[in-house]
């Protein structure tokens, strides 16, 4: 005979699993739903955006991140590779001794001590409170000092009149521009960039993006698993983009 006042083994298991999942699993499935910034709040240093690239997972011949960036920011070119803007590009490296070929995406490294901002005569190159290095194109005079100062060749200059800009990425002739960690997206509450999203969708998961201040962010987990290194660490620029697996 069944006793209603006591839990059966089945009920106990079901209820305890529900409670467990409510506490541990669901918050992970809905990522940072509460962390998104209200539109009227100014950015501050409590958020520190960063990116890690796992070179072992980056696939040679894949350009999903580059295509996504072009799509997101309307970076159409004029079929002139030497002068067309590129905010992110793929590099192929070959180890001289082992002849191992590896490939990686290269973009603005969002340094904490950015040389581009040091040399900018108008203050148009600046570092936002949350660590994003950007160009304020309203004050940029197009002198291109920053392009010369950048050791990663991350910046581009717009040489020609543009007509098909997208609403979220204003850009025009006579200004320098570079990757801005999809600032428009993350200001609107997203916690992923176009390149990371594309890399995830391809199933490679080489790029991880997130907030360094949040111990549960994807980038922190990725770095915990496989420590990331900064390129040219001897320059002491403290980049926010790190590479692991080399």
């Amino acid at each position, binding site marked *: 005979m069944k006793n209603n006042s006591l839990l059966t083994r089945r009920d106990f298991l079901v209820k305890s699993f529900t409670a467990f999942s409510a506490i541990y699993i669901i918050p992970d499935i809905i990522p940072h739903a509460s962390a998104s*910034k209200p*539109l*009227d*709040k*100014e*950015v501050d240093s409590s958020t520190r955006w960063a990116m890690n690239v796992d070179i072992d997972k980056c696939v040679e011949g894949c350009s999903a991140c580059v295509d996504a960036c072009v*799509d*997101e920011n*309307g970076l159409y070119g004029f079929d002139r590779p030497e002068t067309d803007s590129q905010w992110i590009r793929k590099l192929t490296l070959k180890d001289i001794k082992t002849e191992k070929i590896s490939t990686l995406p290269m973009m603005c490294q969002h340094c904490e001590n950015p040389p581009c901002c040091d040399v900018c005569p108008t203050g148009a190159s*600046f570092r*936002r*409170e*949350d660590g994003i290095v*950007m160009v*304020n*194109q*309203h004050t940029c005079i197009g002198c291109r000092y920053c392009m010369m100062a950048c050791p990663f060749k991350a910046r581009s200059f717009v040489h020609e*009149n*543009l007509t*098909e*800009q*997208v*609403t*979220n*990425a*204003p*850009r*025009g*002739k006579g*200004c320098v521009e570079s990757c801005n960690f999809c*600032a*428009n997206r993350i*200001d*609107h509450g997203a916690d992923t960039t176009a390149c990371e999203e594309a890399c995830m969708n391809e199933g490679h998961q080489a790029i991880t993006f997130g907030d360094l201040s949040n111990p549960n962010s994807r980038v922190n987990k990725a770095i915990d698993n496989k420590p990331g290194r900064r390129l040219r660490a001897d320059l002491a620029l403290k980049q926010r983009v790190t590479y692991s697996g080399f």
Partner: protein
Amino acid sequence: MHQLVKSFAFIIFIFNPLLTSSHDGEKHSMKGHSKADMMEQCVEPTIVMQKEHFKFLYHQRDKTVIKGVRTKKHSLANCIDCHVSYDNKGEAIPVNSDGQFCQTCHVETAVNIDCFSCHASVPRGKQVILKSNDNIKSISNIHAKTSYLIKNLEDMHYEK
């Protein structure tokens, strides 16, 4: 006499272009329909907007670029979203093209703006696709409402 006719012809020839291009008494109207057509007022009272809109834009642009504030109220993207006109096919007409919202006044007051050498003059891009679908719906609503108003006006006219 011959001299008089000649000078008349000359005078008419001189003043003719001025007479034909005068706008006096002619109503200025923009091509297409925009969301703003059906609104009572902009984000601030109309008189304030006419005099101060550029101050709002300057203020907002620095807050947006440097501080990451993305409020809609004084943002250029939102201005364009609301004031851009759509033609009968539902395609957006650039706000800075001839006879459109921005350009009409700026030609009149001889103010040359360069917002749109960098900023998109129509809503464009990934995040605005959903919005523009809404736009098309609201435009068809505007069409219906305006035609309704015009009909009613005519009826009122006849009653008089």
